[in-house]
């Protein structure tokens, strides 16, 4: 089987396709991944997004060869690598913990993979990779002498220098503070376009996934819920999980009461909500529709009914939180769960106050209809902690910050 794998001695000219066929991974007592099919085209920046325990890290470890699938095949660049070991695969990982070798200098860390493959000018290539992440000046230091952000860049250089057909990133930015995180996001994008590798980025941070990836797959309970361009996922979520995990959504469930050629109308506690047919997954029975909070407009007076506008109200504002660019309102609407609205702070006079009576309206074409029942608790999954991964990251971050401040 090993001769069918891509020889690790060859540098990848460009990224390779990754194909997962019917991958299932069972651990004693639970199924982490259930019959997963996934194709990632060469050269793309693909993000696997999901909450804790959704199977995304397991998927990554399966691709890296650190776990064996219970069932299914893994193909890289068209070649079956399922039965090969991690060290035989043309894949490199940027580990969440960085996993830099503490007993080696930075340059030894970066040259490690090259030396294992018997590359002649390993030192020169390693220095070039360090220059790429602007850390060549620390090449003779030990990892413990570097800040968290620097270690992260070394980990990246150590993986990229091997020119793997596929680069796996396991929440690599989890331990960084906001500013560094932004810098690294830009740097990662630059490197990806520069070296043309296929990137597979695993994260629970929806913002990170959306800003960096060409394609995002939202994963939940071992399955991919929806896959597509970030904008597509955001504007037209197909499941309640995607609607609430990727940004926030206001969801309404009701019977379809009427339909015409372009749209269907749903009765939500007496209020009609119109959704275009091409934006609704189902057109009959009980369906769940939703709208993004920033699409909704608040008015202090009753809104005149007009075709193509959904109107709800009156409701009462129960919470106002000002965040500079926008203000978030929570509105209690009789018969509905609390509705969230974001309003841009374009004019001071339009600020509403806690307890104000308001009407809500939005253009019907912003409504989306879900394929599943909207029984997901409103915004519960959004902030579910990725315990095993984030807690490590947080601890590591605290440790690194302490080191930084000492140094």
């Amino acid at each position, binding site marked *: 089987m090993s001769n069918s794998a891509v020889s*690790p001695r060859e540098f990848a000219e460009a990224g390779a396709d990754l194909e997962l066929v019917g991958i299932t991974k069972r651990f004693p007592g639970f199924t982490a991944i259930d019959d997963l099919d996934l194709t990632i085209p060469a050269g793309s920046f693909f993000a696997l997004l999901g909450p804790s325990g959704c199977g995304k890290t397991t998927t990554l470890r399966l691709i*890296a*060869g*650190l776990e064996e699938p219970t069932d299914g095949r893994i193909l890289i660049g068209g070649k079956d690598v399922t039965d090969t*070991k*991690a*060290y035989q695969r043309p*894949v*490199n*990982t940027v*580990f969440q*913990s960085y*996993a*830099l*070798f*503490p*007993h080696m200098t930075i340059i030894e860390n970066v040259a*490690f*993979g090259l030396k*294992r*493959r018997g590359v002649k000018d390993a030192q020169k290539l390693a220095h070039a990779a360090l220059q790429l992440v602007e850390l060549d000046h620390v090449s003779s230091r030990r990892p413990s002498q570097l800040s968290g952000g620097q270690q992260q860049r070394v980990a990246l250089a*150590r993986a990229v220098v*091997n020119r793997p057909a596929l680069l796996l990133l396991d929440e690599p930015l989890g331990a960084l*503070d906001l500013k560094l995180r932004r810098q690294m996001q830009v740097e990662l994008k630059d490197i990806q376009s520069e070296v043309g590798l296929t990137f597979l980025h695993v994260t629970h941070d929806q913002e990170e996934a959306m800003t960096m990836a060409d394609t995002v797959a939202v994963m939940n309970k071992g399955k991919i819920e929806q896959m597509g361009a970030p904008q597509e996922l955001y504007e037209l979520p197909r499941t309640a999980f995607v609607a609430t995990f990727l940004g926030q959504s206001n969801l309404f469930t009701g019977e379809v009461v009427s339909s015409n050629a372009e749209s269907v109308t749903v009765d939500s506690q007496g209020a009609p909500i119109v959704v275009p047919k091409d934006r609704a997954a189902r057109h009959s029975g009980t369906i769940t529709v939703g709208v993004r909070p920033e699409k909704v407009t608040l008015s202090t007076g009753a809104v005149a009914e007009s075709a193509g506008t959904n109107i709800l109200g009156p409701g009462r504002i129960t919470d106002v939180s000002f965040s500079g660019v926008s203000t978030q309102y929570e509105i209690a609407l009789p018969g509905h769960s609390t509705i969230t609205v974001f309003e841009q702070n374009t004019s001071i006079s339009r600020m509403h106050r806690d307890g104000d009576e308001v009407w809500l309206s939005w253009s019907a074409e912003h409504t989306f209809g879900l394929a599943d029942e909207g029984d997901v608790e409103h915004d519960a999954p959004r902030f579910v902690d990725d315990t095993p991964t984030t807690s490590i990251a947080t601890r590591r971050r*605290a440790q690194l*910050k*302490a080191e930084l*401040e*000492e140094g």
Partner: protein
Amino acid sequence: MAFTAFSAAEQKVDESARKRSPIALFLLLPGVLFLVLFFVTPLISLVLTSLQEPVPGGFFGEYRQALNWQNYVFVLETYGVQAARAFGYAALASLFALLIGFPLAYFIGITLRRFPLLQALALVLVIAPFFISFLLRTLAWKQIFAIEGPVAGLANAIGLLGPGESITGTAFSVVFGLTYNFIPFMTLPIYATLERLDLRLVEAGGDLYANPATVFRTVTLPLAAPGVISGTLLTFIPASGDYINASRDFLGSTETAMIGTVIEANFLVLQNYPAAAALSIVLMAVILVLVAIYVKRSGTEDLL
């Protein structure tokens, strides 16, 4: 963020307090007194004894203080073989203890990591021999290796051992005894380093094209080096001075006498205290030099 900043600041306060406070010195006092009383004093006494000379016309075993440095020449000429043998045996025993102790420590610290109960049990088994006296255990091996014993019988049967030859009293049995007695001292420090070895580093090695053997050589072993060094020191130093295993009463014979055996004989039998003291000083000096070279050569000062 504020929290980490606070804890870091607190640490700094601690450090500066440590530098200034006279309380630290006061707390050191018992330790310093202990060292002066039980280490410095005997050491000086030993050096003085090693320079003594016999009282002319005095009793057997009667000495007076002098600067008789010829004692050193005498012991080196007389017992050079035993000294060399001691370091050779100790080196062999350390090597064998390492070859047995490392896989054992690896098994307990890494393979059994997912089974804490089994891990604790295995550790108890490593330590268990300490519950029985060192002398008894060594005597037990003498029984096992005895001429009519099972091992000698088997060795005779397969022709490893000629008729009438014995296992005890040979270099083999002494090195065996030393190895056996010091395996826990080798295993425990190595276990301590392997037990907290970050397995993600091993995975990272595999991810970077290193096969399992290379990962072991380039990642696991260097990270276990502090344990290996402490283990070998804990084995080599006491083994070089050991006088039980090599003694005729246990696993040795006159042909296997080590420096510890001759020190014992000079102190207790021959009552040549200056020679025994000189031998002790030589032993100490050689160990000091060997250990210094070893620690320096292994280049892990920053890991220790």
